[in-house]
């Protein structure tokens, strides 16, 4: 994986709660066996109607073209455990997803694919939804900078390290399992 650097981008506001992985990648695309190219199917049933982009869906708004940050509501990524959902978000270009809560398996899958899911308070999310300016995400400093004001976020130390160094989770855990447990324990909050 690529090391995770600071990300600065306009944030795409997806104003829906309980977005399940079937909305992220509908079931008809699960049969595809390659790991790449899922971006074109991201939010397919919301994004397209008979193959034509729907004007009323936020991803089709030119203002959010090239956005690398997705703002989502509560319980994002619930439902099926399909990792295709994360592959599609990544392939489309999203590197950060910010929400008040994530479904567990989806949350884990993000880290395996170099995506940073950030959990924030309702108040912070509201602030992010209402800004029109670019947002900067600094993983090293664990902060989201919006309108020059930094908002700190929490991330487990091991996961932070994996993303910052672009390490492959499988390879790392294979080599360092004892160290990870000690590291996590010493940083427990």
């Amino acid at each position: 994986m690529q090391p995770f650097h600071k990300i600065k981008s306009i944030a795409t506001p997806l104003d829906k709660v309980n977005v399940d992985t079937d909305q992220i990648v509908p079931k008809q695309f699960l049969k595809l066996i390659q790991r790449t190219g899922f971006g074109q199917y991201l939010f397919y049933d919301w994004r397209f109607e008979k193959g034509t982009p729907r004007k009323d869906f936020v991803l089709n708004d030119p203002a959010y073209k090239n956005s690398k940050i997705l703002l989502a509501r509560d319980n994002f990524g619930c439902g099926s455990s399909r990792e295709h959902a994360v592959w599609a978000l990544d392939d489309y270009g999203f590197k950060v997803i910010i929400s008040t809560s994530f479904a567990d398996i989806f949350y884990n899958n993000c880290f395996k694919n170099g995506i940073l899911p950030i959990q924030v308070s309702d108040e912070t999310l509201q602030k992010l939804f209402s800004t029109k300016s670019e947002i900067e995400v600094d993983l090293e400093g664990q902060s989201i900078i919006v309108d020059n004001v930094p908002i700190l976020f929490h991330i487990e130390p091991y996961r932070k390290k994996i993303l910052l160094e672009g390490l492959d989770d499988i390879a790392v855990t294979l080599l360092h399992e004892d160290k990870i447990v000690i590291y996590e324990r010493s940083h427990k909050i």
Partner: protein
Amino acid sequence: MNITEKILARASGKTQVSPGDVVFVNVDKVMVHDVSGPGVLAVFEKLRKKGMVIDKVWDPERVWVAEDHFVPAADKISAQNIVLLTNFTKQFGIKRHFKYGMGQYGICHTLSHEEAMVLPGEVYVGGDSHTNTTGALGAFAAGLGHTDVAYVLLNGKIWFKVPETLFFKINGKLPDHVMAKDLILKIIGDIGTDGAAYKTMQFGGPGISEMSVESRLTLTNMTTEAGAKSGIVEPDLKLREYLAARGVTKYDEVHGDADAQYEKIYEYECSEMEPIVAKPFSPENTAVARDLSSVELDKAYIGSCTGAKLEDLQAVAKILKGRTVKIRTEILPAAMSIFRKAMDTGLLKIFMDAGVVVGPPTCGACCGAHMGVLAKDEICISTTNRNFPGRMGHVESQTYLASPLVAAASAVTGKITDPRDLK
């Protein structure tokens, strides 16, 4: 420690663990199916490109494979994926591959208990979110993504953060017209679809002792819909009998200590329960079935790992006997072993006399894959577990989740119907 903590402690070689601890556990069993299997193979491909040599899995005896989502092969790509799975099990020497059209096969979670693939006290992971189901066998059972399953296949280990446990103390006995499905829908309606996020939902108390193993499996199956990491029930005599009937008597049970800790304890009284339905588009969007009696339906679907076990089909037969259905109704037993028992005990005749179509075991339309998916604006009552937009077909179709009794009664009237109100 409670049962989940004790299983995770044992599997990680520790004497004590607490919620929040990170533990590396030895996995006892791992499962992939025809969606997660090809996904895992895609991860293998990525690792190979980086130079990793992958020519064996850690223990082929502990790996098992199901064909369920897209069988019978829904199209050319699905057919190709089945070939891919077949080559995978052949290459890595995996013998427990339940193949469509070759004796026993069915939905992976159903096979986990029908075939006793997982035993009490074990750590079981699967490439599917409803892996939680198998926790009713007194095991730690959790779903993983493709990369994590690939890791387990190669190393036989995985790390978990020990989850907090929510204990659901179930009292009393369910009335005849109420099933475990109603109870779990009620619970999800109360705590919400993320009410148990990264937590274990443990079910116990006198109401659980009264409940059959199959009913308990309905509870643990739907813990996923409350966002739970896992669901679990402690082993008891009923479970031992269930496993003995499947030829398994040797395993190492784990039970919680007398002073086990739980984050929170909820209590439910079975005798006060009523049939519950979850309205579109979320399992937490619950209502009393009687309050929805004006909802007109296009279809009834009785299938899935949640609602097509033998007990579920028996409940449906109780309603359909001597009656005919008023709307399109499909029944898909969850595994061949259940299909056969339904045939041997005369249930299939009752279903066919009622006008129902009986299909082969498959996840089918539960996940909107094939075999009777819904059209735009079609309204379905279903014994399945999810009703997010488009889950069973068109994104503007609607699914009401219900117990097998309510689904069958509704099939007879064409409207959402409490079984007590059926004439």
